[in-house]
């Protein structure tokens, strides 16, 4: 692509589907539709073969969870839902929990988030399934890092912990 048309056309493409700026300025609609929520990482999900991207940068688990998350998606009729933003980068994660007999029957997440945050949310959603609220609350950052098989630099630690604080908020909203 040429420099001229490339930059301008991409800008236009990014702006147009959202219509008027008033609509996109509310901040809320981004996650209300699955399409918009998945867009940021949709390219990463379906890629097959070839040398894996970000090799040497992140652990295999992070890259695998980022490319093929197991718990990503909407959960209609979820009893507990919470969403939060990482003020450092604007990343947004929403966690949805279906509860049954005092336990988490299913958990799903959607979000505009980086590889670390996506992987963390995916691991966490998987971990909470089958647990009571009290058990779910006991999950710590270290538990997630164990599964991710990685150390995370301090600047990226919030990417790991964001899903955890969203989980706490979701459980708070669901009652005792």
């Amino acid at each position, binding site marked *: *692509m*040429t*420099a*001229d*048309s*490339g*930059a*301008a056309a*991409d*800008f*236009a493409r*990014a*702006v*147009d*589907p*959202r219509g008027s*700026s008033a609509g*996109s*300025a509310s*901040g809320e609609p*981004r996650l209300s539709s699955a399409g918009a929520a998945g867009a*940021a*990482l*949709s*390219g*990463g999900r379906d*890629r097959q073969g*070839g*040398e*894996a*991207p*970000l*090799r*040497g*940068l*992140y652990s295999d688990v992070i890259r695998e969870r980022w490319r093929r998350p197991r718990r990503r998606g909407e959960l209609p009729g979820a009893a507990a839902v919470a969403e939060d933003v990482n003020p*450092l*980068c*604007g*990343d*947004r994660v929403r966690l949805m929990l279906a509860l049954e007999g005092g336990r988490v029957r299913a958990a799903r997440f959607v979000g*505009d*988030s*980086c*590889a*670390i945050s996506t992987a963390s949310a995916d691991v966490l959603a998987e971990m909470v399934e089958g647990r009571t609220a009290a058990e779910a609350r006991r999950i710590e950052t270290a538990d997630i890092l164990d599964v991710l098989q990685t150390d995370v630099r301090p600047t*990226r630690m919030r*990417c790991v912990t964001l899903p955890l604080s969203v989980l706490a908020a979701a459980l708070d909203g669901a009652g005792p």
Partner: protein
Amino acid sequence: MRLDELTRGDFPVLERVINGHRLVYLDSAATSQKPRAVIEAMTRYYERSHANVHRSIHTLGEEATELYEAARDRVQRFIGAGAREEVIFTRGTTDGLNLVADALGRTLAPGDEILITEMEHHSNVVPWQMAARRSGAVVRAVPVTADGRLDLEGLDRLIGERTRVFAFAHVSNVLGTINPVAVLCRRARRVGAVTVVDGAQAAPHMPLDISALDCDFYVFSGHKMLGPTGIGVLWGRRAVLERLEPTRGGGEMIKEVWLDRAAWNDLPWRFEPGTPPIAEAVGLTAAVEYLEKLGMERVQEHEQALAGQAVAALSALDGVTVYGPRAGSERGAVVAFSVAGLHPHDVAAWLDQHGIAVRAGHHCAQPLMRRLGVVGTSRASFSVFTSPEDVERLATALAELAAVL
């Protein structure tokens, strides 16, 4: 000799090796690195002349006062201001914008309108929202066009008799767009609005002539222009400054104090309560001298060429999107981009592995990110020491990343 070849040896930090690679620092828009002249000037000040300014009747106090006030004269000349009284030292751009918004906000009433733009940094958005909340005024925003410019027709629709303030960036910290300050100020003047220009991304990168811009306030930071953190400049037109009540009280800003009242000091000290950033002013003087020695025309030419090179090189990569004015048009020393399928933080982390420092995220411009329809972008930004090879290193690392996607 190219500017980067001339200056490279002056910046000690550039000798660092990061993750096995020579540091390529492409984050000068966030904060610039410091030449030895600035670091040494501050050290010399602390080792020889440090004392409090204006109040100490001893030799060191006189030296410190002289150095501090000399910084004001130096800045005045650097930006082409008419009078030294119009140059107020702040803690930085954010501090300066808050000061203006706070002071101007007290003159606003319900129904008044504050006009900003969609491409503003949060520091030129939030202080106005605060001023509006306190006064009952309303904040409106000039839209951005598809090619990353201010929509001047939109401006015409929004600006009017109710517009009391028009605040906008000289250069966008994301798009690199250079806004036509004089044109915008003329339109504001027609309706009697006060103009406030955020010059954080302009002052370090181009020649400035405040008197030709015809604005009422112009604000920038020292640390983005090779100077130290903790100091910034608020230039204000004297006639407007004199109408404003100071918003912060303390020593230095008063002429006389009684238990129940006080009389304000003259400009500029009226707006500089407390002990000012003295060592930082000394460092700022050294930074201005350094830039003036290079020549701001030459600085702008050098960085424009780098921006042009980066736009061309990155746009040519499959899967890489470059934002802002199209190639070939004038732009500031920043180039924002994204890699399809990758979050900007992951891109920045990848580049850091290669010793390349870029900024990633929303760049404190979330309304603009929503307008672009992205969570964030990565951003490369340039300074006097940035070389064409640095830009090539960026393009090569990105090409490698894009190739495995």
